[in-house]
């Protein structure tokens, strides 16, 4: 996309975070000017896996490449007064800062929001911390797992007969980063309406709590405590079912949330599955009936007989042809090789490490006039430090 029009070309973002780089990636991939402000040892994301092969050096992280392609890197030692002054200078020409520290810490560095907003009243300073800037747990240490536990997600994840679990993949961190990008854009767009920049205080615990679905409302409205149910289905037709080569997720009901129960029954009947006819009886259209253990077992046995000889991809395609919400439970190899995602050209070049081109997830959205585009590679540690220092000393805008 040479010379493609960029939606966010006139936005400047400074990323002060160790591992929330997905926030500023969203800006960078739509054309914003994004600079990583790194300590002399580099940010933590450079040391986070997955890595390329057996390498573990500061340029070998696939994770960092994915997050940082197209960004610039400036090394700033915030323990040093001259470097702090440099950062304050950069903030004059910045629209949005993404940060992961408590304000008490930034104030001690002379970089508190009230201190820097004097330099630039239009500045949007977006802070993401494990528990937010206020409240009894504000100073608690956190990470992805702690956010999933404190935000109520881990309680819902796992097996009925075992302890809570956390799904791998830094879901809380990516979600908090996305949340920061959205809130920053709202504040940026609202600068005229609201009279200038703002400080935004995001709590990772709260972001995770947004994902707890209706667990709090089940408790307050019905007195029911939702908890992890593992492989047990919520009701007959909504659950995880084994098949020949793994598992499928079926989501079928004809009342409440879900459609296609009658279509599933027709599918089973037309496939000659024994006992399928019995599932057409009127009581099978009642969710409470389908939630009874004996009825879940009955459906499970009938569906298992059908699925045992069929693969998950075939079940997916044949079920969807009948407008049934069925899906294969894929691993990373199956997801990466998925025919649909590849037909859509989803996986794309996301960077390179010493000449090795890397492939990974591409555009999360397609904007017809201002296309998404990943940068060509991530910056080396401090790659733009000299250029940025010079431009500030000579009084030019950072370019």
């Amino acid at each position: 996309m040479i010379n493609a029009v960029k939606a966010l070309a006139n936005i400047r973002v400074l990323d002060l975070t160790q591992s929330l780089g997905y926030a500023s990636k969203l800006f960078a991939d739509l054309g914003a000017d994004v600079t990583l402000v790194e300590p002399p040892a580099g940010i933590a994301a450079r040391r986070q896996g997955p890595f390329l092969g057996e390498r573990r050096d500061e340029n070998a992280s696939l994770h960092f490449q994915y997050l940082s392609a197209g960004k610039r890197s400036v090394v700033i030692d915030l323990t040093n007064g001259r470097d702090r002054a440099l950062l304050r200078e950069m903030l004059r020409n910045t629209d949005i800062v993404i940060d992961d520290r408590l304000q008490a810490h930034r104030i001690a560095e002379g970089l508190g929001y009230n201190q820097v907003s004097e330099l630039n009243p239009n500045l949007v300073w977006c802070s993401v911390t494990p528990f937010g800037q206020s409240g009894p747990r504000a100073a608690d240490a956190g990470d992805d797992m702690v956010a999933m536990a404190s935000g109520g997600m881990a309680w819902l994840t796992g097996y009925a007969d075992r302890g809570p679990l956390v799904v791998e993949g830094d879901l809380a961190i990516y979600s908090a980063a996305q949340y920061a990008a959205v809130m920053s854009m709202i504040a940026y767009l609202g600068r005229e309406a609201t009279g200038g920049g703002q400080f935004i205080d995001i709590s990772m615990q709260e972001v995770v709590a947004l994902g707890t679905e209706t667990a709090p409302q089940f408790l307050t409205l019905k007195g029911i405590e939702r908890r992890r149910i593992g492989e047990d289905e919520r009701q007959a037709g909504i659950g995880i079912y084994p098949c020949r080569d793994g598992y499928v997720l079926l989501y079928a009901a004809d009342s409440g949330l879900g459609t296609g129960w009658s279509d599933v029954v027709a599918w089973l009947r037309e496939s000659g599955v024994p006992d399928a006819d019995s599932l057409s009886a009127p009581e099978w259209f009642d969710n409470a009936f389908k939630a009874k253990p004996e009825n879940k077992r009955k459906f499970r046995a009938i569906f298992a007989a059908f699925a045992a000889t069929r693969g998950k991809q075939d079940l997916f395609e044949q079920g969807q042809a009948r407008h049934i919400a069925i899906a294969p439970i894929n691993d990373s190899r199956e997801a990466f090789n998925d025919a649909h995602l590849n037909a859509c050209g989803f996986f794309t070049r996301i960077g390179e490490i010493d000449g090795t081109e890397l492939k990974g997830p591409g555009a999360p959205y397609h904007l017809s006039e201002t296309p998404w585009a990943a940068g060509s590679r991530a910056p080396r540690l401090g790659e733009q430090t000299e250029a940025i220092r010079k431009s500030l000393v000579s009084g030019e805008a950072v370019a």
Partner: protein
Amino acid sequence: MSRSLPLAGIRVIDFTWVGAGPFTTKILADFGAEVVKIESRTRPDQLRRAEPLVGKRGLEESGYFAVRNTNKKSISIDMKAPGARDLILDMARNADVMANSFSPKAMKKFGLEYADVAAVNPRIVFLSMPMAGATGPYRDYIGYGMSIAAIAGMFGLGGAPGRAPVGTGTNFPDHLPNPLHAAFAVLSALAWRRQSGKGQEIAISQIESTMAAFPDAVLDYAANGHVASPDGAKEGYALRGVFRCAGDDDWCAVAVRTGAPFDALRKLLGVTSDIEAALAAWARTRTAETAERALQAQGIAASLVARPADLIRDDGHLNARGFWQHLEHPVMGRTLYHGIAAKFSRTPTGYRSCAPLLGQHNDELPELAGLSAEQIEAMAAQGVIK
């Protein structure tokens, strides 16, 4: 707070339903956009009948629908009636955003694809966010958040070796990755429109969107051929897990990074080997809350695994920050809502209104569509509005 909300003046015509779509437009509504849901009485949003329900499957009793639709308006239109399309196009003339989460053939059937709408309003930002996108073999496939997580490889990373995968236990992509990507795209298109004066089309595949915010397993497979499993170790950690505590079904998550936190843990436990077993034994004799406070006092990342009752307790951290909100609803009464996970120094984040009743704002149609009250009455008589 006399100034406007950040998105004041933005009007959204909202066809989205069920999960990710309504949460996308809720974000816009919560920050001041005027979001007008286009609903059908004959085929209402499934979420209006989804548990938890306060009554018996009426259309105004769902706690699920309520929390996804704060600050919005609702218009009830029979999209099959002749004249419905023209009415929507009249509304689109005065709108900034039009959003839908149907499979691509639905908007085609309505005659309301991007080209149709852009013809009357070239400044429109037109968002489509079906499960599988606009093209490709799965384009008409349907699913829920869990289905998307399954295809994307996320669901399979929740679980224990040798047992069936269990995902997060929620429709995770519906609540965070997909609405947040969609909202960012819409806001970016609005930012560009300020510069260019032009609208544009945004096409999202919810499968792709989920994978973009869940990249690491796929990056590892693409570069190294390594297939991730649920019990993967994590760089930088000496120890990480969920430990059983003294209470009933009482658990504490502990994530100990190498270096100072690990040193602090060894000191706290008074052991130098078999740290994990020692931590498990230590936790078993304490409540999760006691364990959490003792670990945090040493700078070790830890948290009790919050149950729903812990999340909403009066003296909890979330209430101390004012996260939970309550709204009065004409049918449901006063109920609990998830709040906004951010505080702004100058923009209030308290909800202004509860979820709309189906068709509650039909009276505003003359203004919304730029038509006279008589014209709207005539459409109602023809069954377009009902």
